[in-house]
């Protein structure tokens, strides 16, 4: 039983075009039956075909002669400009992040170094005291040692 009406057929044409090869397989038979019994459907199919042909026949609009030269002349002049473009477009974010990390690391490093120096001086004093203490205990050992 053919359930396709003109509206469904027009939707089929709009979605898939006028070539039956492009129609969903399950709808081809119904669409063909409708075309055979409905002059209006046949007319719509012809219109869809004509639209396809008209679109395909649209003349190309080649670029004017001067446009190629205009584009070539407008290219950034040298590698430095390209590099600047590239830097401006792609590199500045990671470069900024890397620079910030580097600066942060430098500051942390400097601070750590001054703290370390302080610790070293304190540690030196403690070590000296320990040695003195060790010397004292040594003196108190029995003679056989």
């Amino acid at each position, binding site marked *: 039983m053919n359930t396709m009406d*003109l509206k469904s057929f*027009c939707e089929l044409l*709009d979605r898939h075009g006028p070539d039956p090869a492009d129609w969903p397989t399950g709808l081809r038979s119904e669409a063909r039956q409708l075309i055979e019994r409905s002059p209006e459907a046949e007319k*719509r199919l012809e219109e869809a075909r004509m639209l396809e042909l*008209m679109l395909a*026949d649209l003349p190309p609009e080649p670029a004017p002669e001067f446009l190629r030269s205009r584009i070539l002349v407008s*290219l*950034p002049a040298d590698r430095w400009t*390209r590099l600047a473009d590239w830097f401006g477009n792609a590199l500045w974010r990671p470069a900024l992040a890397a620079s910030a990390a580097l600066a942060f690391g430098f500051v942390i490093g400097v601070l750590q170094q001054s703290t370390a120096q302080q610790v070293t001086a304190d540690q030196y004093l403690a070590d000296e005291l320990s040695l003195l203490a060790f010397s004292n205990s040594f003196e108190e050992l029995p003679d056989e040692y």
Partner: protein
Amino acid sequence: LGDRSTSDLQGDGVVSDGVVSDGVVSDGVVSDGVVSDGVVSDGVVSDDRLIADIARGDGEAFALLLDRHLDSIHSFLYRMTSSHADSEDIAQETFLRVWRKAATYRPGRVKVSTWLHTIAHHLCIDTFRKQREIPTKLIDEPADDLADPARQSSVREQKLLLESALSRLPDNQRSAILLCQVQGFSNAQAAAILRVNTRALESLLARARRRLRGELFANGDDSG
């Protein structure tokens, strides 16, 4: 690297819109010859290889890419904008973007022609956003005159009517119908250019065809 001169390309394997009819190169995809390091056996350089050379600042490669694709991009843009000035400006900007962004192109993901049309389409949409009134202004004047059915008999007038109707389509519908039915892209490629899925692309095509049928044959509204 093979000889990349345009004259050789046109004399041997004819280059048209990135497709070489003899050497059978289409954006680096070869069906008949052999690709080795971006060079096809008959000496024709693939579009992918040209883009890689452009990324290294090779002006000769850029000029050759321009020769292959400028006409096609300009034709698409002229149909989109209905304006020579706009289509030339956007075509220029499209290729400048290629020069600047060649390093971002990933071979194998999309064809070069698809990539170029993607850039052109989106620049076009940006231009429309900035100059919202221009497309409708360009179209409305001749449309009233051509809407007279008595004038629709000749093929030339039908073409004018078609161009006018095309210009009145919403931007994405116009892009979809031009890419698929004039520029020769598949639905999947056109969907990639418009950054929509294939089903949405089919929907755009359906609406575009319905409107065009309605304007050209005065019965498109019957369908739904």
